[in-house]
């Protein structure tokens, strides 16, 4: 009986070790017993464990590639002073952080922290030097029609007119189909990765509401004819048209040929 118990404990230990080894080396560390900590403690602990190696223990950033961040880990990352709650909320809520290397494009993924952890880290980062709060856009107040013309002017050059994304020199442009109102507003104000930021002097909060209203509307397009063909605009639609025309013309050729034979 006791031998069986020892065996079970050993096996469980081995299993845990295997799981620990299987975790990627850059995997995140959750605060053990996180629910018992205060928000400030939780934020500080999570930041120290997951963010400080690249962003520095006080969010001062690690500018040069050979510098060493917290814990002597060779890493690199931008300063977080003055980014406020807005940037960490966006990057963590969309799973864009953490990334493996500086310079890699942060992409939307399943978020690795829960809402409480994100709020704690965001508040902690905002403590480094103030900065903007998480925005609360009101897409219900904005007209998607005006939003479309603003989106065309400011966003569609990279994100395409229905927010399908694409490529620009140096970056993959993210698809906007899964972004919620807050994330869209945050991205406009931050300008993540290679995107420019749009301060209030460029896009007012009222205009931002319209843009958000349009992007949300574009996530459920009313496809006339039933098929969106990727929503990528005239190029795929043109290719489909050519395919249909090719079949039709081939049919006409066959018809003409068969008539001449008789």
């Amino acid at each position, binding site marked *: 009986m006791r031998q069986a118990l020892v065996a079970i404990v050993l096996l469980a230990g081995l299993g845990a070790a295997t799981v620990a080894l299987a975790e990627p080396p850059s995997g995140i560390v959750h605060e053990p017993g996180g629910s018992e900590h205060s928000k400030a403690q939780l934020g500080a602990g999570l930041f120290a464990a997951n963010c400080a190696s690249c962003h520095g223990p006080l969010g001062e950033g690690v*500018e*040069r*590639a050979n510098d060493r961040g917290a814990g002597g880990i060779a890493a*690199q*990352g*931008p300063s977080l002073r003055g980014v406020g709650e807005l940037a960490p909320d966006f990057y963590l809520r969309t799973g864009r952080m953490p990334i493996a*290397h*500086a*310079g890699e494009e942060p992409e939307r993924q399943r978020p690795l922290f829960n809402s409480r952890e994100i709020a704690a880290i965001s508040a902690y980062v905002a403590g480094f030097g103030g900065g903007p709060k998480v925005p609360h856009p009101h897409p219900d107040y904005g007209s998607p029609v005006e939003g479309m013309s603003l989106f065309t002017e400011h966003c569609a*050059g*990279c994100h395409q007119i229905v927010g399908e994304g694409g490529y*620009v*020199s*140096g*970056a993959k442009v993210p698809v906007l189909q899964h972004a919620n109102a807050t994330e869209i507003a945050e991205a406009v104000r*931050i*300008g*993540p*990765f*290679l*995107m*420019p*930021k*749009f*301060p209030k*002097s*460029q896009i007012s909060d009222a205009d931002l509401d319209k843009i958000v209203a349009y992007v949300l509307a574009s996530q459920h397009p009313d496809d006339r004819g039933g098929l969106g063909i990727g929503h990528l605009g005239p190029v795929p639609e043109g290719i489909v048209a050519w395919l249909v025309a090719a079949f039709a013309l081939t049919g006409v050729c066959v018809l003409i040929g068969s008539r001449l034979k008789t």
Partner: protein
Amino acid sequence: MKRRAELGIAFLLLGAAACAVMFLVVYALGWPHMTQYLGLCLGAALALLAAALILTSAKLFPADAEEVVEDYPPTEHPMDQHEADQVLSDAGGRFTRKRLLGGAATAAGAALGAALLAPAASFGPFLDTKSFYYSPWRRDRRLVDEDGEPLRAAEIETETFYTAYPENAYREELAAPLVVVRLEPGELEMPAGRKGWTPEGIVAYSKICTHAGCAIALYRTPRFGAAEPGPALVCPCHYSTFDPARGAEVTFGPAGRPLPQLPLLVDSKGDLRAAGEFSGPVGPAFWGVRTRRPSSS
């Protein structure tokens, strides 16, 4: 039967010619919604031409004509036949119809050819390129935004971009719009001869791409400059990429030369003004651009 067909063909060909002439008239008058009318005229001309060709093949060269294999019997009365030919040729009925057909075909061909060549006039002045060099920018002309408000140097932020127009000037001119960005003065590596063009690190370039004339509508701004690609002005049409910190030199894409730069100054009120004229001709290159290009770019 054949006679009626020939008249019909001539009629269709003349119709095609008339439509092609109409195309020329519409093009010359420059009507509103001109392209729709141009398309209509050209489409009708081609449709009538096609109808004429179909009628020709169906009526004048009937399919069963090839099956006539029997030779004419040898001439029995050469003199009589010669006389008959003479009479026929004098009567001339068939001869004029043939000429009518030929004339109609020539008219249709000439009119359609002229209609197809005429739009080349839209390429612009052929030899006189002086108007291509026109620019509304002069020293001390103020930069204003879309609403006509002056652009203040202190309000220009980094990591975003602004569109500016010349104050009190026609904005639809190719050389009117500018893209204005602020960079860290330490990042700037301007070409020789452009000292003092960039007060406080604010740079201004023509917003018109030097490749195909699209508007430079994209500004790439790295969030973390140490590890990400540097700032760039990008044209959304063909992704020509210009480095704003190095006199808008081309770093990627099909553009053949840098964006022309406008020297700036900040006046006593803090507004941005032009400090001179563009460093080169604006917009897509045209004949003579390279020779008249200033040596600095």
